[in-house]
């Protein structure tokens, strides 16, 4: 196990290193003058520009810039662009060109929003998706199954922004049951938090639950056709127990991997939802930084997203091996 973890961590580090290199080099090699952005709206003098460039290390060759960037993540780094020397503690991802804030702080600011969105959504879509999938597998070919299949197809075929739009029209414009979503911190007011997030959660769930319904249905049918299910039936276990204890366990175990990785990719994969509902999460941060060519933030978000996915991949494997003893970690 320790050996496995070591291996996974090393592997993950390599992936992250490659990821960061690709992201960094691509974005910094593209045209655009970051120093101009830092300097502000059109009031920048040439000497000022140069000072900023030097301060940010933009005058150095790109590979050296990348190296400093890496060192910054591990050990922090020091900028001397301002009147005093600014120390950016590890993990330092640099400063936003736009707002001058440390990227790490920006990410940490946005993280709770994205987390609230996906964790809540995840609970809903997994619950609904799995329940519907199990139900439709057990009632295969009957009305419930057909309806579930129809819903699944519809959910699968609807872009999340379309669902979100519909929800907004129905619940905020016509029915006026809910406020237009905006983010409220959970720590401040849990009720408002949930009230504001319910529509985004539902929008995400409509699309994602469909996937889980499909997967669960397939997986459940597969498990139900397995021999050990027949064994327990032949040994007189009541159907409820056969399904509730044995079939479900087998059917849901494969979902662990998908679920874990889903959770990870959602962290930044909900950009559209955040954008539509105006939630100040990581996705929105990215979109606005892209619009403003705020490279440190773009690189920061991308790296964070990559890191989370890489970690989730490893976590999925470990979780899976815990859930299914047959799978040895190697």
């Amino acid at each position, binding site marked *: 196990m320790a050996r496995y973890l070591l291996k996974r961590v090393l592997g993950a580090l390599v992936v992250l290193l490659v990821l960061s290199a690709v992201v960094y080099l*691509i*974005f910094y090699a593209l045209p655009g003058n970051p120093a101009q952005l830092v300097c502000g709206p059109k009031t920048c003098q040439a000497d000022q520009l140069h000072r900023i460039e030097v301060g940010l290390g933009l005058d150095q060759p790109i590979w050296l810039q990348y190296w400093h960037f890496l060192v910054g993540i591990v050990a922090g780094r020091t900028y001397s662009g301002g009147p005093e020397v600014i120390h950016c503690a590890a993990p330092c991802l640099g400063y936003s060109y736009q707002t001058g804030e440390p990227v790490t702080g920006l990410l940490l600011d946005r993280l709770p929003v994205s987390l609230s969105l996906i964790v809540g959504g995840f609970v809903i879509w997994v619950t609904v998706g799995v329940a519907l999938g199990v139900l439709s597998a057990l009632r295969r070919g009957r009305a419930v199954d057909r309806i579930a299949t129809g819903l699944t197809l519809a959910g699968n075929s609807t872009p999340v922004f379309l669902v979100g739009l519909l929800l907004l029209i129905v619940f905020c414009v016509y029915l006026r049951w809910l406020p237009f979503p905006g983010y409220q911190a959970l720590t401040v007011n849990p009720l408002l938090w949930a009230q504001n997030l319910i529509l985004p959660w539902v929008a995400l769930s409509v699309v994602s639950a469909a996937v889980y319904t499909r997967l669960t249905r397939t997986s459940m049918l597969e498990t139900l056709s397995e021999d050990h299910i027949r064994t327990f039936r032949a040994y007189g276990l009541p159907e409820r127990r056969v399904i509730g204890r044995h079939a479900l366990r087998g059917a849901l175990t494969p979902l662990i991997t998908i679920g874990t990785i889903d959770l990870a990719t959602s962290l930044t994969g909900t950009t559209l939802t955040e954008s539509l509902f105006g939630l100040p999460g990581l996705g929105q941060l990215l979109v606005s930084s892209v619009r403003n060519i705020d490279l440190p933030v773009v690189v920061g978000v991308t790296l964070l997203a990559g890191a989370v996915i890489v970690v989730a991949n490893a976590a999925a494997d470990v979780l899976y091996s815990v859930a299914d003893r047959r799978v040895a970690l190697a």
Partner: protein
Amino acid sequence: MTTEALAADEIGPPAPVPASTGARAVWRKLRRERAAMVGLAVVVLLILVAVAAPLLTAIEGQDYTTYHDTLLNSARGGVPTGDLGGIGGAHWLGVEPQTGRDLFARVVYGARVSLAVAISATVLQLLIGLAVGLTAGLAGRIADGVLSRFTDLILAFPSLIFSIALLGIVPQSFPRPVLLVLVLALFGWAGTARIARGQALTLKTRDYVAAARLAGGGGFRLARREILPGLAAPVITYAALMVPGNIIAEAGLSFLGVGINPPTPSWGQMLSAATTWFGGDPMYVFVPGVLLFVTVLSFTLLGDGLRNALDPRSTNLSRRAE
């Protein structure tokens, strides 16, 4: 189901029905899938519409660039004056708010963009995926190790994020549709590669591949004759489901403003513009929204049908369920 499957195996023909043996057999099975046929019909219709866009708009007598000020209520933000967004004989689906451009012409031309981008991206994804997957599956352990890690890396890439970033930062002078295709393909091939690799690894252990090796076939001949046909079914199925994914992806990126640039119509970009209009001009949301939904649904139905037709196991199951 369980016991039935067991008993049916016993009473059925000794060998299970093997995978499809040709396009005709697939077609025969596909024809039995009613939903898939509906999907296919819509897909064919959409492609025809996209191809014939100039003709159709000519019949309507409109184009997608001409402004119609007279059809708009300028004081009210440029909302179409007519009912239902200005639907009528001259403008079959009404006009766009603020510009008065013909909505029918725009969605029809938008179909071109959406389909062309999605299908090209899918083709590219398949080509890259097959090349990488087959090489990884067939070319030995070192190649496999390198390529599989590479595939994992792509899968671990926060692709949406990266796509947005890339599309936003690459200079505008680069043609957008091409860039979209490239970006979609860049992050979309890994699934195909995994399937291709897995399938190649499985097929490689099949005795008929060993037999072909004994017959003296070279590596390329082996891959083409014995492995590639075996890949067709899963890959086609996967591809049919990749197209709707790519349509949604294109729409999403355009929705976020990093996709196709506005003068060219695209459904995602139209929807993005329409989001603010859902109260004032619901038709503006409705037209591209429904089209997008129907297109994705049709491709999904077709993909599902193909999967059933190509995968003997699911065919058996579905027939049994009837």
